[in-house]
């Protein structure tokens, strides 16, 4: 078993004995531009992190190292090397790489498991394909522009368990159906709770993203009072299963499904491309042409959190985003003084029966017309 070094991010001078909260958002495969759906999830998680950090000892864990091992990523890198040969990606945009990803997803057939073995071994040793690293580097810049906490996009953060250890621990919980010796797959077995078998490792030995999530979160979960899982709504059945496993390890587990953002009425997977002018780089460029950095950060949060909300009924609307940017500009200009000395009271109101702050409730509260203007401490601590 390997145990990875953990980086906690407590507020400076935080008192000891505060509740411990782990935020674990689903990661985004670094093979394409960030779409409005991705931005929504990132902004949502960031507000939750920065607000909850004032009330609890919060760890924001989002390790790309862990999920590079999914077949989707390894097979893309194998495809790049097979079709592009030795080349650099230092000048490529995320759209350039995204177009290659679309071509990869359109390719018929799958790479044989043995072709991916060297990729998996290299990732375990800390290697990232230059195309993946390029996308992560571009995203790092966009995170900075958006004021998003960087959970270590470019850092090697291996999961605490290797696959066999994760499966052994799962077996000890009575939650593993491992038929590899018979030439079968490995399933997560929560049938005694009435949940269907869920494959973790294919018959030819390929782990899926849920297996990666277990490698990462099973060793971490016992260290926390509350684990918050943030993910796309359509992954809900998998996350119900993940939550069952983690709950058995001690913490209270909260699932926070976040609806995607339809473009022109359609929810599209990034694998089909078609991001045109709605990806993060394009949105940032347009916003920054007319607004300052602080207004861009706050306006994006107002739009993607408070206006779009947790569901996925509303299509992306550039006009509403522009309105939010203007509103943010006015809000910053009229920001009041600190509400109280610690700045935690307005945050604690938005926790409900859990430890983490609900970003939708908190962000929506900024838009209330009868409320006093938000204090600068709240804006700069959480939204800017």
């Amino acid at each position, binding site marked *: 078993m390997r145990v990875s070094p953990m980086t906690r991010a407590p507020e400076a001078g935080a008192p000891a004995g505060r509740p411990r909260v782990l935020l674990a958002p689903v990661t985004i495969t670094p093979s394409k531009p960030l779409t409005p759906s991705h931005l929504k999830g990132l902004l949502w998680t960031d507000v939750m992190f920065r607000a909850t950090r004032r009330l609890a000892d919060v760890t924001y864990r989002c390790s790309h190292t862990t999920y590079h091992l999914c077949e989707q990523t390894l097979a893309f890198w194998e495809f790049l090397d097979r079709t592009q040969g030795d080349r650099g990606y230092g000048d490529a945009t995320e759209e350039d790489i995204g177009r290659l990803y679309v071509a990869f997803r359109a390719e018929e057939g799958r790479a044989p498991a043995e072709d991916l073995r060297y990729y998996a071994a290299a990732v375990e040793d800390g290697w990232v394909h230059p195309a993946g690293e390029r996308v992560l580097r571009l995203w790092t810049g966009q995170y900075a522009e958006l004021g998003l906490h960087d959970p270590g996009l470019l850092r090697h953060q291996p999961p605490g368990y290797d696959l066999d250890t994760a499966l052994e621990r799962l077996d000890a919980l009575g939650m593993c*159906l491992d*038929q590899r010796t*018979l*030439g079968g797959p490995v399933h997560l077995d929560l049938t*005694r709770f009435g949940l269907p078998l869920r494959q973790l490792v294919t018959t030819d030995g390929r782990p899926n993203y849920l297996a990666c999530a277990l490698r990462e979160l099973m060793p971490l979960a016992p260290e926390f009072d509350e684990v918050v899982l943030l993910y796309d709504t359509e992954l809900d059945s998998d996350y119900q299963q993940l939550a069952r496993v983690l709950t058995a390890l001690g913490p209270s587990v909260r699932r926070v499904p976040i609806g995607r953002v339809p473009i022109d009425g359609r929810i599209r997977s990034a694998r089909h491309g078609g991001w045109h002018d709605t990806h993060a780089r394009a949105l940032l460029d347009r916003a920054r042409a007319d607004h300052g950095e602080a207004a861009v950060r706050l306006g994006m949060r107002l739009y993607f959190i408070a206006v779009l909300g947790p569901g996925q009924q509303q299509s992306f609307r550039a006009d509403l985003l522009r309105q939010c940017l203007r509103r943010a500009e006015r809000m910053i200009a009229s920001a009041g003084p600190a509400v109280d000395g610690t700045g935690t009271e307005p945050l604690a109101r938005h926790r409900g029966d859990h430890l983490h702050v609900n970003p939708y409730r908190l962000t929506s509260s900024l838009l209330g017309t009868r409320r006093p203007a938000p204090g600068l401490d709240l804006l700069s601590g959480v939204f800017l």
Partner: protein
Amino acid sequence: MNPVQHHLREAAAARLTAVRPDLAGRHDLATLDGLLAARADVAAADGEETVLVAAVVHRFDLDRWIRSTCGFALGLDPVRADAWRRSFTRTVFLAGNPLHLRDRFSFASVADDASAAWTPPGPAAATTGLRRLLRLFTGSAPLSGHSGITVEIPTAHRPAPHPAHRPPVRRVLYLAAADCTVADALVHLNHTLAEGVLDGLIAPGDRLTVRLLPRLAGVLGELERVRVVTDPRSPDRLMAAAGLSKAR
């Protein structure tokens, strides 16, 4: 046609005729095409008249599987057993852990070590809940070892409906092991053993000695019952997949 192929076709036709005389009337079972057409009819039947069993497989160990399968078949009540026989002991194999399912589903039989479990024979709809929760069993590993073991058929169950009690006998259980995966072995053994029990060839106290041979063409003369399938290497040929020897 070579004599072995002729023998296999006759054996397969005899099985079809015994179980479903109506099919024998609709197809010319004296020809391979007629036989395959009759089998296609059987495979396509999924109406209410089709009776099947869902077998939940957790672990697979050949001697325990043989004992448990026979124990399950010996415990069936005659009416259900007869209906299942008319559906050619159709069985769907699911991956699952019986220990996790016993509170939600009533099984007809669970192996002593909970390595497998069987639902009672019934319409496919009766297994819908179980099939929704589980996945089809995959066992692509080659079958290995086990040749030469002897398994004694358990006696702790309700008496078999027929034939009347008889002294225990010994038989050899043959399995064609060339290209045989674990999943193939489950299927062939399931039909051979279940039908052997329901037809009275296997009874409590009998002893079965397992022999794995690459192919069974050389021992066909010893067999009282042979399971005939289409040769996976060549669809215009039949092959003996498993068989039970005459009583010794």
